[in-house]
């Protein structure tokens, strides 16, 4: 036997020994997934950041560099928020906008998902329409407001149209990106396991693309919420209801900075609430379930 060779592999150990060796390796090498209990810093840290910003704001206002009616302090804004709440205007505006946002977003999902799947699976369609969809995503959807007013007048249809032009392309793009990022190995496995085209889509492609898809949905929501606000600011009156954008525009017309700042804060707050209550938990669950959260700062 040449000396350069390492020793050959031969059978060693009884079945019993191997069994216990295996059990030992299993417990040594697999993750102990003890879940951390709820972390208080998740609430305290954002709260502290918020308070610091408020204090800075108050400090700036108290320097008296600007007229108080142009730059109101936190307490002034709180006052006009309270007034809006008592009059029921705030609730109405949030209700109208949220309802529109939700309906528009759901319809966008229903329209965009099949289109996205089709584009990601059919090469010709992808080549033909891909650049157009990407372009639409870059085009600010506010640009559609004048056209929509001419076509649909001051009706809800105008608002929805603008939202669709914002949300649908970004959801389509998110789904396509998700499908593109599927490791080719997954499709091979599906093929080896004997999946039909439909089974491949349902059991392999869709679940594998889910993180990208959820990312697209999140962006789609952001786009539709922004488009909605823009549409509501520009298009007022007619048969249109009174939304948050309308409240903002009303504040401008009355030159009431308290209302303007209140409206901005409410819009911001709704955005944060949707992110924290809807998207963050879904995303976190999805990523943790696939072992993709280790080492992230979430």
């Amino acid at each position, binding site marked *: *036997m*040449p000396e350069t*060779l*390492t*020793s*050959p*592999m*031969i*059978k*060693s*150990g009884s*079945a019993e020994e*191997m*069994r216990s*060796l*295996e*059990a030992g*390796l*299993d417990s040594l*090498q*697999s*993750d102990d*997934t003890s879940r951390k209990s709820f972390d208080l810093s998740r609430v305290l840290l954002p709260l502290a950041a918020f308070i610091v910003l408020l204090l800075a704001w108050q400090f700036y206002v108290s320097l008296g560099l600007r007229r108080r009616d142009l730059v109101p302090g936190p307490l002034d804004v709180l006052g006009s928020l309270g007034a809006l709440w008592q009059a029921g205007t705030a609730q109405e505006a949030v209700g109208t906008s949220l309802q529109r946002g939700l309906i528009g977003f759901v319809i966008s999902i229903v329209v965009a998902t099949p289109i996205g799947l089709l584009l990601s699976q059919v090469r010709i369609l992808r080549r033909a329409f891909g650049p157009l969809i990407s372009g639409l995503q870059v085009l600010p959807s506010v640009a559609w407001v004048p056209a929509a007013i001419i076509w649909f007048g001051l009706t809800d249809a105008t608002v929805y149209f603008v939202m669709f032009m914002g949300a649908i392309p970004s959801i389509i793009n998110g789904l396509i990106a998700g499908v593109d990022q599927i490791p080719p*190995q*997954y499709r*091979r*496995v*599906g*093929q*080896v*396991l*004997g*999946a039909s085209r439909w*089974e491949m889509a349902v*059991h*392999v492609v869709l*679940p*594998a693309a*889910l993180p990208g898809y959820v990312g697209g949905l999140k962006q789609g929501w952001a786009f539709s919420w922004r488009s909605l606000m823009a549409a509501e600011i520009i298009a007022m009156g007619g048969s249109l209801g009174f939304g948050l954008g309308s409240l903002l525009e009303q504040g401008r017309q009355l030159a009431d900075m308290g209302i303007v700042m209140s409206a901005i804060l409410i819009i911001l707050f709704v955005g944060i609430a949707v992110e924290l209550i809807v998207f963050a938990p879904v995303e976190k669950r999805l990523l943790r*379930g*696939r*072992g993709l959260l280790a080492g992230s700062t979430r």
Partner: protein
Amino acid sequence: MTEALAEKVDADRGAASATAVDGEGRAPVVVLENLGKRFGSGPPVLEDVNATVYQGEFVALLGASGCGKSTLLNLISGLDMPTSGAMEVPVGGAAFMFQDSALFPWRTARGNVELALKLRGVGKAERKARATELLDLVHLGHSSDKRPHELSGGMRQRVALARSLAQDRPLLLMDEPFAALDAITRDLLHNELERIWKETGRTIIFVTHNVREAVRLGQRVLLLSSKPGRVVAQWQVSEEHRTNAGAAGELTAEITARLREEIRRHA
């Protein structure tokens, strides 16, 4: 289990004979006759590959990296088509196990095994029972609800093995499944695979570039040359080669020398 053999390709040659039986009366499961494969107009990756694998046999396919071992497995499994020659493989393709476990990260260990059963058309209730059985077979009953990322590399490969057994095909193709594992885990999985092969009676074609692994596992070792790949030598491995260090060392040395000779031809 389907004994039937399908003719997949019958290019420019006559139909391959499927009726030959080996010395122990076993029927051939895979017959390759002058099989060739080239991609586009490039040089052939495989040329004139001739081999027969019999029912219940464990064949180790050995070769240097880049000799077309994986291509050959893809042809046998039907993932790819040969460009010349003829071959006979079981109807319905073969089970396949990859170098990385290729488990779906969104499914638990059990879910991965159950998906293979589902795609085979097994009913829901039976799926559950069968998945439990298979996970117990690879000694992973205790971790069946864990996701792949919570398992070690060796455990993932055992789940992948359970999944390929769930496909319930007579032929199991393995593409360097233990190459990325540490030595202790690999030794262990060699034992596991041997035990499972004996318990299930599968026909296994095991691709590796590791001579010692080939001798440890195969009943027969086929050596594939590089560029183009063809079967240039084969050795029978007896039980003595697995238990007697001297015999094992001799055979390992002999095969290694031949493998090196093949590689040197390309210098």
